[in-house]
Structures are given as structure tokens and as C-alpha cells.
């Protein structure tokens, strides 16, 4: 039983229609259909090489699909105009190591036409880097760099936010803060698509998409997916969906299962 949006619901914030992306022989995204209503947090869950990052890159307009459509806020991607309404936090930090915290943030903000210093300061307070504004990024700890990277993705108040493994290297206390903030953003109407393989994080999403071999295995609220798989454990749930869907079911488990 898939979650089908009722006709009365608002237009989807993120949409994929028979979305495919091939790299030579490799079918990274192999015909994904999805329709994600706004104001919620969606979790992308899947093993390494399952196509999560490619899917996010297609939706964020960084790659053109081989076939099918990727739509964000009703606009076909890639669309440069639309990028102003989208935030994207890459898997790598994507910040300039020589530049200070403030210089990094103000550079990315300027690309979105944002020059309000007070507003940028608020963003830095949010990621608890407001006392480090002059520190070169190279001197920050891994977690701090992640927070700076997050600040750069949030500064322009995007309506749709793609976060590729945002909490890798972030300590548990701050991770909780991150998620609290994600929920605040969603409550304000933003749509978040978060890729992750940490299971307790998956539980904090409003809805999960299990990805494997470039396909969506299952989609639904964490609770519901557990119920459908007849297990209390999301990992086991993932594996059960994987084995029922794939004919050549080689057991693949989400990375981090062993952690």
C-alpha cells in the first residue's frame, strides 16, 4: 500500500516521473516515480551505490536525466531560476578551506543575492558558529565544517532542501539540534529530502523512501513500513522489502547497519 496523495492535497513540492539516469552501462536511477507533498521531511534510505546521491543531484538540477522528469515546486529541473528556491548540502563539505566561516557563508549567500548581515548572523547562531566567524574553515573540526556547510545551504531560506548525509561526523547532541531545526523548517512549509543511513535518524523523518538499484522499493511513514514488513526494526524492514522486490535478491543492507 503506497501513500497516494489525495486530490485535495497541495501540489507536490518534489516530483519524479519515470526518472532515469544512466552512466554508460550503469543505471544509477532506473525509473523512479514519486510525488512528495510540501512541508514534510522525507528520508532517502539505501545502501551505497543505490542511487541516492544521483537522485538528489537530478532533483537539485545538477545533472540532466537520461529520460523522465524531475520537478521541484512545479518546475522541470534543471532550471537555473528555480535554484534560488532550492538548498543543497553536498555529501562533501563544499566549503573553501582558506576562507573564514563568515567569508564562506557570505560568499554563498551573495550568489543568492543575500547581503543582509544580521540575517547571516542568525544562521550562524543556529549552527552555533557565531563565535567562530573569523576562523578559517580548515581549522574547524569535522563537525563544525559540516555545520558551516549546513549554514551555507540554509542561508537563503530555500523552500526545498536537499541534504546529502547531513549529519555524518556530527556529534549526537548537535545531531538532535539539527533534526529539531529540520522539523521547524518543515513546520514553516519547507520540504526536506534527507539521505541518511543512520536508522535512528530515519525514524525522525515523516516519510521514508527505501532505495535500491536505482528504484524505490517502498515508501511510507517509518511506523507504517515497520508494520508492513512485520518487524520492529527498520533494517529488517528494508531487507524484507529488498528480498520481495528483487528477483536476484542479493542481500543488501543499508550502510551503517553494522554500526
Amino acid at each position, binding site marked *: 500500500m503506497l501513500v497516494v496523495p489525495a486530490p485535495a492535497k497541495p501540489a507536490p513540492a518534489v516530483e519524479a516521473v519515470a526518472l532515469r539516469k544512466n552512466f554508460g552501462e550503469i543505471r544509477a536511477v532506473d525509473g523512479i516515480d514519486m510525488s512528495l507533498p510540501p512541508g514534510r521531511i522525507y528520508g532517502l534510505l539505501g545502501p551505497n551505490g543505490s542511487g541516492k546521491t544521483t537522485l538528489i543531484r537530478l532533483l*537539485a*538540477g*545538477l545533472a540532466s536525466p537520461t529520460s523522465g522528469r524531475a520537478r521541484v515546486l512545479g518546475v522541470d529541473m534543471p532550471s*537555473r*531560476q528555480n*535554484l*534560488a528556491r*532550492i538548498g*543543497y548540502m*553536498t*555529501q*562533501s*563539505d*563544499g*566549503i*573553501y*578551506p582558506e576562507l573564514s566561516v563568515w567569508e564562506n557563508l557570505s560568499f*554563498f549567500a551573495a*550568489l*543568492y543575492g543575500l547581503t543582509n548581515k544580521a540575517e547571516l548572523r542568525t544562521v550562524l547562531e543556529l549552527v552555533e558558529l557565531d563565535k567562530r566567524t573569523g576562523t578559517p574553515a580548515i581549522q574547524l573540526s569535522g563537525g563544525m565544517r559540516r555545520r558551516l556547510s549546513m549554514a*551555507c545551504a540554509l542561508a537563503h531560506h530555500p523552500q526545498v532542501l536537499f541534504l546529502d548525509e547531513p549529519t555524518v561526523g556530527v556529534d549526537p547532541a548537535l545531531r538532535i539540534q539539527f533534526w529539531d531545526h529540520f522539523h521547524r523548517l518543515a513546520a514553516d512549509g519547507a520540504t526536506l529530502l534527507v539521505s541518511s543511513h543512520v536508522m535512528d535518524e530515519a525514524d525522525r523523518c515523516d516519510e521514508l523512501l527505501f532505495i535500491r538499484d536505482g528504484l524505490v522499493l517502498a515508501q511510507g511513514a517509518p511506523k507504517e513500513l515497520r508494520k508492513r514488513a512485520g518487524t520492529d526494526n527498520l533494517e529488517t524492514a528494508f531487507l524484507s522489502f529488498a528480498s520481495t522486490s528483487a528477483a536476484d535478491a542479493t542481500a543488501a543492507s543499508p550502510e551503517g547497519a553494522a554500526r
Partner: protein
Amino acid sequence: MNPLRVAAVVRRIVAQFRRDPRSLALLFGAPIAIIALLGWVLSSQQTNTVRVAVVNETTGQVGQSLVVKLQSSLEGQPSIVVDRSVADDSTARQMLKDKKLDLVVILPPDFSLQNRKIELLTLGLNPTAEASTLPVVQQALIRAVADSAVGATLPTIERATIYGSPNATTLDSLAPVVVGFFVYFFVFILTGISFLRERLGGTLERLLATPVTRAEIVLGYSLGFGIFATLQVTLVLAFVLARLEIPALGPVPAFAIGLGVRTAGSPLIAYVLVLVLALGAVSLGIFLSTFARSELQILEFIPLVIVPQACSAASSGRSTSCLRCSSRSPDCCRSPTPSTVCAR
């Protein structure tokens, strides 16, 4: 020392090379290409024939007879071709500029038995090569003077050049090459690696996720690096062209900053040229960084990009004109190579 482990390292290196066709091409293809280029450039500079004209500016009999003797004496030398068609000073100068002549011997209007001065005019672009032709001319001069009315004493020889100055050093002629080469080299390396780091560090990915266009990025890069390229060009040119003498001050001995290289043309034109070269290097750096996956691979581009660049600069003075009839068209010559004397 465990041979198995050594063999494992060897195998790994061979395997890595096989996966890296770029390095393989560099290892085998680049040396051949570069040596071929160098060979072409260097062999083209080997002019073993010196094309000489003798210009008589005097009106007297003494000068006329000396010119005739000089011409036949010069023609006796194996490596010298005398162009007898050149009559006056301005034609000779023009032919030097057109590289139809290598050397002009001028008997100035005030040449007489009392005032024995002969002028040797060269182009002044290649001091070393030009200096090497002088002994041959001097020998011919000695012989011509010996059986002429001028007398036993040798006339003084004054050297003059069209560009630069007659006592130009190798540095004077090499300075433009060095300036151009190093400005180009460092700007290319800097831009290439900087843009590559943008790609490797994930910041380019992030940039492309913002509304910024690719053209804006490239233009921003060109302007940003252009600022530093401009500063670099200014500093390098100032150092090469200017010479600042610092007088002795207490225990500090006197010294000079800068090379003080003499220029034949306008330093401003040189400035603009080097600047354009540097901005070209910015674009090339950005372009080639897209083919590199690591800093090492940017360095691998050096021999492939920079050396041919240097060679093409060195070969720009290559002459292809026919020696005797001075025609630029090789068709006039029956001989296989245009740089020999034609059958006309």
C-alpha cells in the same frame, strides 16, 4: 628484503600505470613530441650562410675601390653570400628588418683615409649569432684592406643594430622569452590547480547548485585571477626593464635592483602583450583543469602545454625566405628546402 613484497609493489605500479593512459601517453608520447619540436626549432635557427650587403655611402674613389675589394673578398668566404643589388642605406635597413639580409657593411659618407670608420649593421635581435658572424667579416676586411689604397692599417669597425643596441647581451634578447614564459607558466598552474580544487573539494558542485551561471563563474575567475596576473606582469616587467641603483649606505654596499634590460620597442606594448598572455593562461588553466582529476595531472600538462608554447615563441623568428632572390615564396626555389639558394 622479501622479494615477494617487492614484486607486489612492482605489480601494483604496473597495474596503476595500465589504468592511467594519460601518464602512459606522457611517458612515451610527450618526450618524442617535445624533442621533435625542439629539434625543429633549433635546426631552423642554424643559418650557416650569412647574407651580407656592402653599402657605399662615400662619393670618392677610395671608397668605391674598397667596396669592390670587400665584396670580392667576402665572396671568397665559404659561408657568406653577398647581395650586390643593395645600393643604399635605407634599402639595406629594410632588408635587414625583412630578414633578407643578416649583415650590412656600411662605408659612411665621411669615410676617408684619415677617418677610417666602417659600420657593421645587424638586426640586433640575436646578439650571440650576430657576434659570431663578425670574425668572418673582419677577416675579409683585413684581406680587402691589405691590397687597397686605404693603406696597411685596418679601419675601425663600429657596430650598429636596428633593434636594441650593438652591445646587447644574451639576457637582453632572452628577457622577453623569459618574461612571457614564466608569467604564462605560473598563471596557468595557479588557475588550473585552483579550479581543480574547486571541483575536488565539492565547492564547484555547490556553486552549480546556486543560481550562478557557468559564464559568471568563468568570468569571475578571469577577473579575480586577472587582478593578480596584472600585478604579477607589472612586477615582473618592472623588475626586468628597470634598474634601481641603491647607493652604499654605511656598512651596506651599493647594489642594484632589477635587470635593466634594454627595449627596442614600447614597454607599454610589451605590457599589454604579457597581460593578454596571462589572461589567456587563466582561461587555459580553467579549461585544462576539467581534464585533470588530481593536482599531479595538472603538472602533467606542463610539458604538453607549456613546452610547445615556448617552442612556438622561439620559432617565431624563423625565416623561410630564399637567400639569393630574397623571395618569400618557396616556389621560386628548385631546391627542396626554402632556406637554401634558389636556382634563379
